[in-house]
């Protein structure tokens, strides 16, 4: 397994794979946080989560073309504008969708699955009609490409670092929002006991709408970040949805900390195995391990203790 490598090469392997694992971890965190909020806190299975990500990606694409045409001097910084726009647009659409569709389906989680699946098909077709069936290339400013040279062998890709920073910022912001703000307290109250929360005067439908919008907005930011590493096409969102649900379910649906722990374990397992086995094999093994653990712990790694 280790033959053919010198000790210093092995050190580099672990350094680089550790970094690869961390950047995969941040990708998973970004994908899953939005979904975890919607699924965990509201019980809505949002199959259109991937399409919200792609909406964020297309927003980034449009912003980048606009900057190129009208503000070429500012192109280096367009990405931050794009990310904020992606959040706002996805959150606004999320709010609209919640009002039009989701709020009629609470207490019927399986129906939200079907309804949002239909929504995802509609969104895909809309992208196809607007942007064409081909994938679009999002052009990135020069400074975001390259890598930081640490040693001869170890190089850290800048876009990987950026995705990490974005994931970290969102996780921290969410932590404060959920555990340190009045809004967060209300959300948790509604999750734990809706009638009681309503009885003490919390407007639970307003909380629902905000939470759904928040989840969609985070999906948009994730999509925006993924233009740095992946492709943007009408059906690219489909590629993310399975992994995203895997992370959320494995972590324990109602726990945001669980989501992060689960993202960490899955990404580290996969990235370590990828180095010594082939890519496909690593994926299969990861899935098998997750399935195995879920059989022993159906509620996921970290379940919320609720008195029912």
């Amino acid at each position, binding site marked *: 397994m280790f033959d053919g*490598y010198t000790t210093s*090469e092995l050190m*580099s*392997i672990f350094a*680089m*794979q550790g*970094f*690869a694992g961390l*950047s*995969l971890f941040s*990708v998973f965190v970004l994908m899953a946080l939005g979904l975890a909020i919607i699924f965990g806190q509201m019980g809505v299975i949002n199959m259109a989560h991937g399409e919200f990500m792609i909406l964020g990606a297309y927003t980034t694409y449009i912003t980048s073309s606009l900057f190129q045409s009208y503000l070429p001097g500012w192109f280096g910084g367009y990405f931050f504008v794009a990310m904020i726009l992606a959040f706002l647009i996805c959150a606004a659409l999320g709010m609209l969708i919640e009002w039009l569709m989701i709020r009629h389906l609470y207490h019927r989680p399986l129906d939200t699955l079907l309804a949002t699946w239909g929504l995802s098909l509609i969104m895909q077709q809309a992208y196809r009609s607007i942007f064409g*069936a*081909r*994938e*679009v*290339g*999002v*052009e990135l400013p020069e400074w975001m*490409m*390259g*890598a930081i*040279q640490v040693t001869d*062998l170890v*190089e850290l*890709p*800048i*876009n*990987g670092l950026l995705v990490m920073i974005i994931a970290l910022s969102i996780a921290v912001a969410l932590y404060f929002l959920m555990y340190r703000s009045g809004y967060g307290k209300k959300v948790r109250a509604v999750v734990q006991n809706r009638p009681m929360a309503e009885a003490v005067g919390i407007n639970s439908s307003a909380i629902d709408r905000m939470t759904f919008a928040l989840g969609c907005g985070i999906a948009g930011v994730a999509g925006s970040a*993924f233009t*740095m*590493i*992946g*492709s*943007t*096409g009408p*059906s*690219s969102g*489909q*590629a993310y949805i399975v992994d995203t649900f895997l992370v959320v379910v494995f972590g324990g649906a109602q726990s945001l900390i669980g989501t992060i722990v689960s993202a960490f374990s899955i990404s580290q397992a996969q*990235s370590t195995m*990828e*180095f010594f086995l*082939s*890519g*496909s094999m*690593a*994926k299969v093994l990861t899935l098998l391990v997750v399935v195995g653990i879920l059989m022993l712990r159906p509620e996921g790694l970290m379940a919320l203790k609720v008195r029912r």
Partner: protein
Amino acid sequence: MLATTVHAAPPTEEVNTTGLAVTDDTVTVGILHSVTGTMAISETGSVQAEKLAIEQINASGGVLGRQIKYVQEDGASDWPTFAEKSRKLLRQDKVAAVFGCWTSASRKAVLPVFEQYNGMLYYPTFYEGLEESPNVIYTGQEATQQIIAGIDWAVNEKGAESFYLLGSDYIWPRTSNKIARKHIDKLGLKVSGEEYYPLGHTQFNSVINKIKLKKPDVIFAIVVGGSNVAFYKQLQAAGIDPTKEKPLVLTISVTEDEIRGIGGENVEGIYASMKYFQSLDNENNKAFVKAFKEKYGDDMVIGDVTQAAYLGPWLWKAAVEKAGSFDIDKIREVSPGIEFTEAPEGYVRIHENHHLWSKGRIGLAQADGQYKLVHETDDLMEPDPFPEGYQ
């Protein structure tokens, strides 16, 4: 176009003894591609090229004095639908030939139908080989024509000694890499790694790390679809700049069409082994590109498969005229040896095994999304769909 000798239209009962859709002044063919579903992105170019060829043939007098009409069916990216539609084209429409299919899965699905009802399919995609049907003319390259040309070039011109094989996880990349490995072994050179990732995979950091450690001379990449975007962006981000050619990136899966999605700046400096590039500098190709853009718009790009699809109607016309008949059996009989001197790729000829003799070419990707031709084989390469030791 073809040096056309205008044929006086022979009577229908002479040229059509098997009840095909041929009248005194028209002949009907089929076009069978996906215009909806996931494959529509790729197959659109083929449909456009086939329609262009048919239009040009009609303008130059048609086939045996008959204008070509076509029935177009949508395979909808679904293999059973392909089989169903091909049955409809052959049985109900009685078409004289079908131009179509893209994925190997769709071709395998229609194959029994074409053999049962004795139809003739002109199939345009480069593919893994290991097939030879009396009812199919393969106008794209089979695997050895791309791979052997590519590897020989890297070895002879760039002094490559070690290769890292990489691909998406399905039959075409796996078979192709098997042939690559065999050829590399035969040359006494080294394969330093071989790896596959699921379709749609977007995290290539690990394999890129391995590549950096093993320091191969060549990364031989057969990544398809959206994964390409991730792969080339991450390659750049990890500090592997293809323009430095260390390691050199050689692909058989990225045509001008794919570059539109990946972005020219991300693939600048990679090499592709294909038989056709839009930038080929010859009179045939200039006329073809001009006609294509006039019909479909200036921002069109033409990839390898689009050109191969364009060959189909012309090769069929040549066969019909040589046979003096639309009958499938006669066309099959005369097809080996049929030449097309005005092909955009230069010159092609049909081999006894129904594949094309054609040149292997290497292109260097430019930032504007076009390939610059850097090498072509001196002679036409013989198609070899069943290379020894792969069955």
